[in-house]
């Protein structure tokens, strides 16, 4: 009974988070095209619904009813597995993201944390591990398609994701040193009490360099412009998902956007204080509305995440694609030394000025 109830509550939480993430993906597909259009003096989609707001639904319906093609000579098992391998790790990472204040509520005699599905004490490590598995989806999808473009896209993706995973991991170490925990909930709580406590500018050692390294690596890891070599339209047709169609293609597509949201959530939680407002406490809490103060926190978290998502679009509208050797040189010769130096300096600072 007890375990059944707990399972039901967990499933409800998972469904809620999945729903919000899928909804955000839908919004993002439209927002990206609109923002990109506006930045390029275009209008973006305008046909479906007023100002094209129903475009994601039309896209989804189209993809759902498209023919599902498995090319001749493709490895059927891996070809089927790859989109799942891409999507599941992207979605599963949200399990440890704290979307709001870490309060507990009593429900059916159980302690429930409403804003985080599971507060495991290695949260950030868990996200990194699953992000690496996501690369398998791309690589296997590229290999199993039996197409030269897909294979080249997969190869590029393998090299790129391995290089930039490293930078992401090392950039995060500084934050972990300062907060002393791998749990995203604890990391976020350590940044409470105003924007000067956010790890991006927090004493004893501001993680601004780590933040820049993390953001650039996150863009590279999600295969977005200017690091979109795995799916370079002008070179590789569509890269690793050239041969995919219908819902399998949609899986890759959703995985890309879900990954964007995930890295934005992690960036917000690690460097920009997560759900903490940039001032101590919450306004709603100060005027005596403690019971709904969590709304303000959730709004702040959403605002930070959407800032990063906007940054993704902004970069896409502005920057041209990097060459492959530039990408590798930048990753290994610039980002990696900066991240390593940041760890050394943060460690020294954290040793002499413990928080």
């Amino acid at each position, binding site marked *: 009974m007890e375990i059944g109830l707990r399972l039901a509550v967990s499933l409800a939480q998972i469904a809620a988070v999945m729903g919000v993430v899928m909804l955000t993906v839908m919004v993002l597909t439209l927002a990206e095209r609109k*923002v990109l*259009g*506006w*930045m*390029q*003096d*275009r*209008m973006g989609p*305008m046909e479906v619904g007023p100002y094209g707001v129903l475009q994601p639904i039309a896209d989804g319906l189209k993809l759902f009813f498209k023919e599902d093609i498995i090319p001749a000579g493709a490895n059927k098992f891996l070809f089927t597995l790859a989109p799942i391998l891409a999507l599941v790790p992207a979605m599963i990472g949200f399990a440890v993201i704290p979307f709001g204040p870490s309060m507990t509520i009593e429900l059916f005699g159980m302690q429930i944390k409403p804003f985080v599905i599971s507060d495991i004490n290695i949260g950030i490590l868990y996200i990194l591990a699953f992000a690496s598995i996501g690369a398998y989806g791309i690589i296997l999808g590229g290999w199993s398609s039996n197409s030269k473009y897909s294979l080249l896209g997969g190869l590029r993706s393998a090299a790129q994701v391995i290089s930039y995973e490293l930078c992401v991991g090392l950039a995060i170490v500084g934050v972990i040193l300062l907060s002393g925990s791998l749990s995203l909930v604890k990391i976020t709580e350590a940044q409470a009490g105003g924007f000067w406590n956010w790890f991006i500018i927090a004493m004893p050692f501001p993680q601004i360099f780590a933040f820049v390294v993390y953001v650039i690596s996150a863009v590279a890891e999600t295969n977005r412009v200017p690091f979109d070599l795995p799916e370079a339209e002008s070179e590789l047709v569509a890269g690793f998902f050239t041969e995919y169609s219908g819902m399998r293609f949609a899986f890759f597509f959703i995985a890309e956007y879900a990954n964007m949201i995930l890295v934005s959530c992690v960036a917000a939680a690690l460097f920009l204080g997560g759900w903490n407002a940039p001032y101590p406490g919450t306004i709603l809490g100060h005027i005596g509305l403690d019971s709904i103060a969590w709304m303000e926190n959730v709004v702040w978290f959403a605002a930070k995440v959407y800032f990063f998502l906007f940054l993704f679009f*902004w*970069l896409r*509208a*502005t*920057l041209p694609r990097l060459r492959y050797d530039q990408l590798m040189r930048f990753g290994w010769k610039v980002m990696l030394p900066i991240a390593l130096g940041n760890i050394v300096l943060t460690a020294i600072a954290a040793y002499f000025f413990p928080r």
Partner: protein
Amino acid sequence: MNVAITAQPKRKSSFSDWLKTLTFYELLIGMKATLKHLLNYKPITLQYPHEKRLLPDNYRGMLALLRYDDGTEKCVGCDLCEAACPSRVIRVVSGEVPGEPTKRYSKEYYMDMTRCLFCGLCVDACPVDALGMTREFEWAVYDKRQLHLNKQQLLAIGDRSYPVREKRLELQHPNVAFFNVTFKHLPQKEN
């Protein structure tokens, strides 16, 4: 002339350059440009099927065969358009007008519009001004063969695009015929 060759000033990597690289200065300039376009958003897009561009006066659209106002075809089957066409769009089968051995007309007239490049050379070549370029351009079809037009179709396009038509040349007043600039290849008619 003796020009002193001055050495190109050597590009030194100064401190400011280093600082610019470190702070992503060039990237920020680009991002400022895109953000500026986002903030004062003035789209240059025309929502095509709903709003259409004003076509220029000399727009060269779909080709058409024309008639005189009494309904007779202008075409005399001379094949000059076929000869003038650079992409061999036109095929004319010429024949005598029955009972009038001095007059000819085009028995069959085909245009393969899949190949047409709308240069207007056939219109220029026509001695009797039997060909015209309309302002139609929405000719997307599902079957390529629908673009292989015969004489009836071409005449129909001409009928709907040129509702006002001139009289036959021999019915016109000689002065009108003389000043009618559209008949630029015709010799002045004796009367």
